[in-house]
């Protein structure tokens, strides 16, 4: 029942984001319109894929670090991506894909640093160090970014921050294809870790006694979730709240079993971002709102209601 409801919402969100937009396209011409075919459809799909990736990555990370505040961007990836993008502009790397690739590389570099920090105490990835290391590396990258922006001569640098918060404006079939080829692998790794993640919720020691290879699972979940987020930031910039709120919503409805929780977080995240982007494009048309504003405006009230239910229950 709840699955049917969730899938219905997701399908409706996708249909709405293709059918509705600031440009008036008559219903009869929907399937022949260049605007629908080359702009709306890839943007809707990309919104769904990015939202889903952030949702499932957030659910995995929250289970891994056992911290309800964990968000895919908390672990330094947005800072790394921003630094990559700014460096690309400062070094005059041109070409249509220079910025996304540089942001992806920056996110990977941050990921590698945080991962290395997390292993500081040996083969066991320490969740506390992951969190602290993520925040520290993120702040460090942001500081370097700001220094480059304020010192370099390239005037376009000041707009690099716009790119980082650019949302889904750059959606194209190429981007959809890249994510479609890329995302299934980390998603499969996360899904395969469902059972050990359930055990991990009991604590690392009990999970070990129950037969989970805790260290390997933590490493795999961290890398898979971060690789998903790095791809998301490369195609859509930093989009907040999806990876934080959706896993909590899913946990509230589907419980703590990751076999159901992870797919629900994926579909829910996809639906939320598709809806948010449709609203961002249409509510103040012909102007457009940054999509992160809409995800926060929807996400935060839902989140507060949810906290209320938690504390009362």
């Amino acid at each position, binding site marked *: 029942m709840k699955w049917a409801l969730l899938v219905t919402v997701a399908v409706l969100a996708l249909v709405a984001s293709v059918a509705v937009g600031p440009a008036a396209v008559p219903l009869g011409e929907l399937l022949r319109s260049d605007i629908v075919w080359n702009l709306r459809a890839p943007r809707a799909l990309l919104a769904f894929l990015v939202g889903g990736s952030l949702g499932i990555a957030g659910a995995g990370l929250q289970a891994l670090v056992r911290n309800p505040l964990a968000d895919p961007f908390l672990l330094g990836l947005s800072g790394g991506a921003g630094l990559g993008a700014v460096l690309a502009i400062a070094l005059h790397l041109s070409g249509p894909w220079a910025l996304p690739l540089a942001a992806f590389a920056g996110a990977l570099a941050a990921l590698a640093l945080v991962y290395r920090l997390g292993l500081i105490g040996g083969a066991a990835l320490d969740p506390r160090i992951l969190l602290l290391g993520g925040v520290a590396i993120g702040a460090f990258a942001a500081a370097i970014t700001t220094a480059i922006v304020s010192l370099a001569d390239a005037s376009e640098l000041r707009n690099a921050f716009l790119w980082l918060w650019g949302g889904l404006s750059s959606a194209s079939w190429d981007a959809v294809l890249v994510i479609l080829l890329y995302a299934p692998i980390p998603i499969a790794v996360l899904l395969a870790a469902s059972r050990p993640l359930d055990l991990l919720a009991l604590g690392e020691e009990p999970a070990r006694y129950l037969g989970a290879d805790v260290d390997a699972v933590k490493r795999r979940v961290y890398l898979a979730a971060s690789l998903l987020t790095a791809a998301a930031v490369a195609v859509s910039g930093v989009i907040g709240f999806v990876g934080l709120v959706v896993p909590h919503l899913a946990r509230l409805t589907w419980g703590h079993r990751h076999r159901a929780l992870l797919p629900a977080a994926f579909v829910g995240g996809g639906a939320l971002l598709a809806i948010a982007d449709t609203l961002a494009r249409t509510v103040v048309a012909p102007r*457009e709102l940054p999509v992160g504003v809409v995800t926060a405006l929807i996400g935060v009230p839902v989140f507060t209601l949810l906290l209320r239910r938690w504390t009362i229950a």
Partner: protein
Amino acid sequence: MRAFFLSVLILAGCSSPAGRPHGPTARRIVSLLPSFTEILFDIGAGDRLVGRTTWCDYPPAALAVPSVGDGIPPNIEAVAARQPDLVVLYNSGPNVTAAKQLERIGIRTVLLDLNRLEDLGPAARTLGRLTGREKIADSLAAAMDSLAARPPPSATASITFVVWDNPPIVIGRGSYLHQIAALAGARNVFADLAAPSAQVSLETIAARNPDWIAVLADSAVPPAFAKRPEWQAVRAVRDRHFLLLPGSLFGRPGPRSSQAVAELQRLLRK
């Protein structure tokens, strides 16, 4: 240049009455906006400039004046070190704060609005009064006023100014560039946006289907977004109908605004 221009557009919202000129004729002036630098040279007060921003690249003689940084926000100590008796600032939030700080150390400041063509005349007159060059400033102001009041010709082409590509940010009717386009006979397809600039959806640009995409560029090659797949939904991008407008000429209202109009007309005829 695009970024500077953008920041000017964004700041354009904040305005308060311009500072009231008083006191003796200014001898050592720091100009913190390229437009003011151009006006000062135009009215024959260029030799009194002792400081400018890194953006002040016209007239060529301006480059001989020491730079005090990019001016966003002004570096108070660098400005003060030039020992000016007048600092001319663009009227915006951060600059109001900077002006107060300068006044506190005894340096006279004037804050001037300069967002649209009709601001040019008053700015030229104020600068003329402050430098004792009223006569020549008045004739410049009169020329600027008549340009601002000139009825635009009927449009022969449609145009979209793209200030930034991801997310797409375009120029609305609140901008100086909208006025330049209108005077050159180009219809800004985003004239319904009251703001100087705004973020819009790519599909809105595609649907409004402008004949030309104008970008402020200091290079002769089309912008990088011309090759992005999603931008191919815009006809003018597919047809490579780009107008590459030099930032120094188009990015600022000033004595050369009529030259900008003529240049845009020439580009549209090509």
